[in-house]
């Protein structure tokens, strides 16, 4: 079962978990939902965590897996249940609301435009400071895949941020 010290380590990680979730999700509320779902799953899976290994990488892996699953499920739902234009309408109205948000800076906008696989690579390495090897393990991809995603993601960010200083 989950021990008290596991719990305390997890509590200490909460601010960084929340930041990673915000980076992945489309807005603050989605980010907090993702964070909460991650906490629940981490508590259930606590016995699988190897003491002495990095808890942050372990938790990030849980989080990005939930996020990927939900993104896929979301796409399926839209394709199955909503006529295509309606789906587009919903999505563009959502995007417009996000763009209009005062809190949303250039960096947020540029990050949201990245394909998800580039966004998670950028978040893990540039924001959370994981080594390439650790980030590749979190994502479950080869190192070469990670670095090429990083290169493409950074090029796109530089283009976007260069245009809107």
């Amino acid at each position, binding site marked *: 079962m*989950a*021990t*008290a*010290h*596991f*719990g*305390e*380590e*997890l*509590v*200490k990680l*909460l*601010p*960084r978990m*929340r*930041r990673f979730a*915000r*980076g992945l999700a489309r807005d603050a509320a989605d980010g*907090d939902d993702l*964070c*909460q779902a991650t*906490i629940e799953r981490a*508590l259930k899976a*606590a016995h699988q965590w190897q*003491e*002495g290994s*990095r*808890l*942050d990488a372990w938790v990030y892996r849980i989080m990005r897996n939930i996020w990927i699953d939900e993104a896929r499920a979301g796409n399926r739902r839209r394709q199955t249940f909503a006529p295509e234009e309606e789906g587009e309408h919903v999505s563009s109205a959502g995007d417009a609301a996000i763009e209009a948000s005062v809190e949303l*800076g250039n*960096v*947020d906008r540029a990050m949201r435009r990245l394909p998800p696989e580039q966004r998670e690579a*950028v978040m893990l*390495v*540039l*924001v959370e*400071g994981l*080594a*390439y090897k650790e980030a590749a393990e979190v994502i479950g991809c080869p190192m070469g895949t990670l*670095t*090429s995603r*990083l*290169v493409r993601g*950074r*090029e796109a*960010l*530089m283009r976007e*941020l260069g245009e809107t200083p």
Partner: protein
Amino acid sequence: MTITPEEIIAYVDGELEEGARNRITLAALVDIDLAERIAAERALRRQLQAHYAPLAEAPVPAAWAESIRRATAGPGGEVVDLAAARVRKAAESGRAAPRWWHSPWAGAAMAASLVLGVFVGIAWQGAGGGGPIVARDGALVASGDLASALDTQLASAQDGAPVRILGSFRRADNDVCRVFSGAMASGIACHAANGWQLQHVLPGSTEPGQAYRQAGSQDAALMTLAQDMAKGDPLDAGQEREARAKGWR
């Protein structure tokens, strides 16, 4: 020499072995396009970190911590766990820079935000030449005016010096390292048996022909690098003087 985008980001992210890192540092000294690409990658990294840093400082919903503590408390409530202290210690020695780090370095970077460019008189010949940086025993080592600035100047007293020392610190192996900023090159050098070994080199604070420019962003980049390398706080004026008196050992 061809340097791929993958190598550039690995260089900036600190993922390269020493040999590969030196190769790129050398190449950047003579290739202004490469130096600028490196600077742009560093600037992006810094911009993202600055943007997301406040999020990890913000308080999280109290209910989250409560639900975790409820789920992980033993049947008797408080659980005494001998392994906890060890694990906590390991987590604390992790990568995240403690908050108290920010103020001393931020102050140093700010103080040096306007760097007078009077370093232009030095002949810059890149590696192997008689410039401020030479290759020696497979490492890049400071020479000439840069070496003497690193040897003698204190960060607290250097009005009008051609190279400014932005700060000094000790890294994990206890070597003294110094952050410098000059017109032709800026960087971080650490004291070793064969002189001041260059750990990072960025383009200088002044373009040829310009008197000065705002060097704040470059200096901030160096401060971030220094912070990653350092063990503890930067040296204060007294500690720096003491280190100089002991030959930077």
